[in-house]
């Protein structure tokens, strides 16, 4: 038996033995998603067990090196693991900005001590991270950020304000863009700091959104002392790290559609029913299949991009393409789910109405094409870096 097939057999057996039955059902509500962290509220014993087992195996981050808490798997082995998890509809054990965003940047730019300190805790879901990027005056024009970090000899003194900090009120640590050199050109005075959200002087305030939820916060820094060893990379070179991390963030946001959810057509079948072997609502059926053609084409593109990266091929600015297309697709998915539910989808409050989950999800998805770089910014990047159009 080829190695990869014996790996598949072992993986299948391990998942059979270790994935709790409750973790093999579709994610239905927010609490079904596990974010880890010091103050993690597990929604069930099974959720906790699943995270512990996968974390111990390094399979929360299958392709990270084992010395940093990863699974040390090859790309092909990681594909097998993913397909075996899909086979039994296993939930992802851990959702984490540490995994999707900070981890790749730490692996590339962090020093050995930082990697050993932070990566294993990310892998095991022990520390939950948030991202200090946007500011009230620095959205699409992120490099105009003003939060300052003054060099005080043995530490930096951080002052300023961040906004749209996802789950800042629940996070343990923050990776944060700060200005260390106010005299340098705007892209050159930026540094990348890691610090504990429990540090004196850090405060957060949730922002209420159109969905009624408050996943984002305003985050304030008032004379926060950050040890010098918490600087990642080189002072003044933080913009390179910021951009590198954004490419991972964009891929992560773009990739959301393939996270093992029911497809639109599966939901439509249940909700709308069938007539003469086709979906009862033939008008919506056409819309749904057009969406699924794009969703499938996009999923295959994600796969191809990863395969090409592995083979050292591929084109630049792909993260912008994936972010742009993936988020627009997710928005189209949410629109269709609303259409499928008709007027029932408009329900907003009350347990009998599912607390308006569907409508809130639809509203939440509107942010997908804004956060992490708007669709328009990503189209600008493609025009400039890939198509090399003038003056973009």
């Amino acid at each position, binding site marked *: 038996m080829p190695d990869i097939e014996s790996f598949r057999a072992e993986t299948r057996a391990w998942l059979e033995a270790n994935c709790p039955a409750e973790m093999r059902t579709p994610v239905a509500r927010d609490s079904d998603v596990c974010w880890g962290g010091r103050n993690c509220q597990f929604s069930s014993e099974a959720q906790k067990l699943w995270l512990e087992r996968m974390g111990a195996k390094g399979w929360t981050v299958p392709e990270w090196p084992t010395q940093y808490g990863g699974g040390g798997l090859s790309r092909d082995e990681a594909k097998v693991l993913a397909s075996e998890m899909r086979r039994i509809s296993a939930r992802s054990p851990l959702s984490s900005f540490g995994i999707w965003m900070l981890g790749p940047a730490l692996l590339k730019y962090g020093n050995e001590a930082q990697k050993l300190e932070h990566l294993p805790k990310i892998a095991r879901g022990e520390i939950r991270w948030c991202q200090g990027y946007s500011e009230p005056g620095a959205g699409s024009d992120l490099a105009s950020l003003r939060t300052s970090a003054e060099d005080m000899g043995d530490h930096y003194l951080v002052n300023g304000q961040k906004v749209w900090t996802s789950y800042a009120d629940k996070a343990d640590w923050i990776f944060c863009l700060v200005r260390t050199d106010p005299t340098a050109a705007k892209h050159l005075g930026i540094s990348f700091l890691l610090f504990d959200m429990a540090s004196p002087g850090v405060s957060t305030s949730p922002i209420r959104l159109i969905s009624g939820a408050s996943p984002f916060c305003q985050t304030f820094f008032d004379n926060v002392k950050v040890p010098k060893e918490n600087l990642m990379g080189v002072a003044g070179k933080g913009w390179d790290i910021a951009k590198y991390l954004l490419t991972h963030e964009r891929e992560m946001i773009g990739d959301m559609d393939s996270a093992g959810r029911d497809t639109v*057509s599966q939901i439509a079948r249940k909700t709308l029913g069938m007539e003469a072997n086709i979906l009862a609502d033939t008008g919506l059926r056409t819309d749904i299949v057009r969406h*699924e053609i794009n969703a*499938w084409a996009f999923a*295959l*593109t994600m796969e191809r991009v990863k395969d090409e990266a592995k083979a050292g091929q591929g084109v630049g600015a792909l993260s912008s393409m994936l972010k742009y297309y993936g988020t627009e697709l997710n928005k189209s998915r949410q629109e269709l789910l609303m259409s499928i539910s008709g007027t029932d989808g408009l329900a907003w409050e009350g347990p009998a109405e599912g607390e308006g989950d569907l409508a809130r999800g639809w509203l939440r998805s509107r942010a997908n094409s804004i956060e992490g770089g708007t669709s328009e910014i990503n189209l600008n990047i*493609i025009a400039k870096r*890939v198509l090399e*159009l*003038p*003056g973009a």
Partner: protein
Amino acid sequence: MALVLNDDQKMIRDSADGFFKAEAPVAEHRRLRDSKDETGFNRETWAKMAEMGFAGVLVPEAHGGAGFGHVAAGLIMEAIGRNLSAAPMLSTAILGTTALVAGGSPEQQAKYLPLIAEGKRLFALAADEAARHAPAHIKTTATPSGNGFKLNGAKGFVLDGHVADTLVVAARTRGAENEPDGITLFLVDAKSAGLGITRRSMVDSRNAASISLDDVQVDGADVLGEVGKGFAILEKVLDAGRAALAAEMLGVSTESFTRTVDYLKQREQFGQKIGSFQSLQHRAAHLFCEVELARSTTLRALVALDSGDERASLFASLAKAKSGEAAKLATNEGVQMHGGIGMTDDIDIGFFMKRARAAQETFGDIAFQGDRLARMLGY
């Protein structure tokens, strides 16, 4: 299987690129159109394509072919799409070969496959009867006669039907008009008595014949596959064709897109390159994404055909739908962004739009593929 090209495939891509650019570029397409060439392609080019192994790309090595497979065939089709090269690649090398490989007896394979690989025998698929693609919609009848059958009916849009030596005809030996069961495939010599072949010139300057069958006598040995069980073979032939067309349209899209982006970098209005206008930049960037998605679906479909993936039909429809939509957008945007000059016959951009339209219609557009996909997915 990874969605990347291996070294052999990259070599085929490069040699196909070089070949069609040199031997059958867009200028040659224009020349064939302007001269109202009766054949519709250059037979010398086809002979060279046979020497290159392109004609026999799907023919197994045991029958004298190159046996490179569908990914390689797709790379050749993509180069054909970029250069708008006219050749019986689809009709003969893809459709004819797949029909023989999927349904042919050892005798039929031994008789025809080597001739295809040598470029010495042209095939055409005579299946569709309605203007909108509907493969089970077959009224042409095959009734027992002598030691074989008599065929009666009419076929439309038979690609390269006017030059084919052998037609693969789908006819009904039993069953109702839209039933897959009861369809039988026949290998019919183009010189058979009772066969009427009328060449039609199409918008893309390719040829698609209308064919009438009036008591055309075929031998029992000319049945391809089993009597009444031809639909499964026909589906394989069509899926190979859909994936190949997806690849050709990908070539059409990429070339149209490249030419358009180049134009955006040259054309000046209001004292600046029009490519500096954000309204055009965003549309071009969106189009780039669509073409990349089309590329992924096309490669997946070709890989599925090569590996005998049980979802090959699904991926073929997906690729045909997505690549068709990308080609439609790429060529429409191509003409629009060229402005007035894009409407003229002087420049080539319009040729790409014409070819994209024809290729979209061939073997089902997105409406057909979407319906087929939804049915395969159970809705």
